């Protein structure tokens, strides 16, 4: 079942085109890696998916809701982990999660249960009453993923969630989000790191605002390996730099 549908989406910052006719979809239970170098348009696409930006060009469907026509229904079904941390460092983990639950209309016992379930799922229950400032980068990211799950979304968007993390934390978070996809969530994971991608993941390669390829990891890799194939596809940038 299609959870996220992006069709012919374009967006410009003034005269600069950031996205140009982007189309792809993500099914329930799939981990889709949105792979692209810096400046490819990944963050712009995430801003459109979360309605921080709006465009008249193209269509974005979230769990069957058109984000332009029914933004509230669409946002209620999205869990988002932004590239930039969005935590209040001086509040405790639980206070941060309670604030988020409130923004989604959850209060009282239902909020407590949802927060506890999300913290347990991410192995963060014992840290619930610690100040976020006291957590390391990996635990902060886990907390943000737990937060994104509180309201029971159908789609999880993560914009380069492993930036700045050590190898062990990256691995743990990547593994966990793959498990979430296996449990039925549709996951869109923006990255420029090919080692975060598994063989059975869907890959959408975004470059200079256009979708270059949309397929499975083995399809894209061909015989040369995914990393090399990705570098070849996006080679023009490095040629310019050289």
């Amino acid at each position, binding site marked *: 079942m299609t959870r996220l549908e992006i069709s012919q989406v374009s967006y410009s*910052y*003034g005269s*600069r085109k*950031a996205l140009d006719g982007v189309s792809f979809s993500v099914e329930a239970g799939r981990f889709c890696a949105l792979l692209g170098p810096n400046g490819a348009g990944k963050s*712009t696409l995430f*801003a459109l998916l*979360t*309605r*921080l*930006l*709006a465009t008249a060009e193209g269509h974005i469907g979230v769990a069957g809701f058109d984000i332009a026509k029914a*933004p*509230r*229904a*669409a*946002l*209620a079904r*999205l869990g*988002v982990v*932004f590239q*930039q*941390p*969005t*935590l*209040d460092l*001086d*509040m405790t983990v639980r*206070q941060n999660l*309670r*604030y*988020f*639950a*409130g*923004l*989604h*209309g*959850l*209060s009282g016992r239902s909020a407590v249960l949802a927060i506890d379930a999300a913290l347990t799922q991410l192995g963060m229950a014992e840290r619930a009453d610690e100040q976020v400032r006291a957590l390391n980068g990996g635990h902060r990211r886990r907390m943000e993923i737990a937060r994104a799950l509180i309201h029971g979304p159908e789609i999880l968007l993560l914009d380069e969630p492993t930036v700045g993390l050590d190898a062990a934390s990256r691995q743990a978070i990547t593994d966990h989000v793959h498990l979430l996809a296996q449990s039925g969530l549709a996951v869109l994971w923006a990255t420029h790191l090919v080692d975060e991608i598994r063989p059975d993941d869907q890959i959408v390669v975004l470059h200079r605002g256009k979708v270059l390829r949309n397929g499975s990891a083995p399809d894209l890799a061909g015989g040369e390996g995914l990393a090399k194939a990705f570098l070849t596809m996006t080679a023009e940038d490095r040629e310019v730099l050289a």
Partner: protein
Amino acid sequence: MRAWLTALSAIVTRENLRFVRQRGRFLAALVRPLVWLIVFAAGFRAALGLSIIPPYQTYITYEVYILPGLCGMIQLFNGMQSSLSLVYDQEMGSMRLLLTSPLPRWWLLFSKLLAGVIVSILQVAVFLGIAALTGITVPAVGYIAVLPALLLSGLMLGALGLLISSTVRQLENFAGVMNFVIFPMFFLSSALYPLWKMAESSPLLRDICALNPFTHAVELIRFALYGELHLTALAWVCASFVLFMLAALWGYDPARAMLRSKG
């Protein structure tokens, strides 16, 4: 509707938690008007003669005259402080979290605004309490009647802050807000001197003061402190609030958002 109130409660709780933690901000918010009340007013008491003007029934001391203006000053600074915190939230990303909530954007921004106003009313309450301890009091009914006036003036000044935050994208640019918004609004108002006094030196400046929404916020507070309603000031404050809020909502429209930041 319950979800809306839950979100409002969450936003107000967060603002209050942040405020309680920022003791420096609380002290600064109190020290500033107290310095004006105790030091500045003492110095100017002799220099500025005041006639009997409504809502006062007798001659008053200068400290009594500037008390409402200093309440307005607290709210003006708080509105700009909230604006600063919104710019900070935009830079730090937490504004994204707020704006991706599945509730109407106007409600989320209004909730944020209201949360800041509640903080400013707490500050004014403490300030009025300290003023009363130093002998500067108003009729007992004024302490209650001023609450709705503070709510409205706080909303109007907060909406101005919200509007500014939709146009100022970097903290570094915020010093300009101090120079070009707070000081002209405060000094070109009836906070420190009545408008007739200003007219003696410059009719043009008096007219500018009369057009300044902050003047009307101060007059609304002044009359409310004496249990009276100043209808003209009320209309000005409400109209200014609607205007600033609509402009701020336009500034936060997703079709326009982030354009400047990405060039």
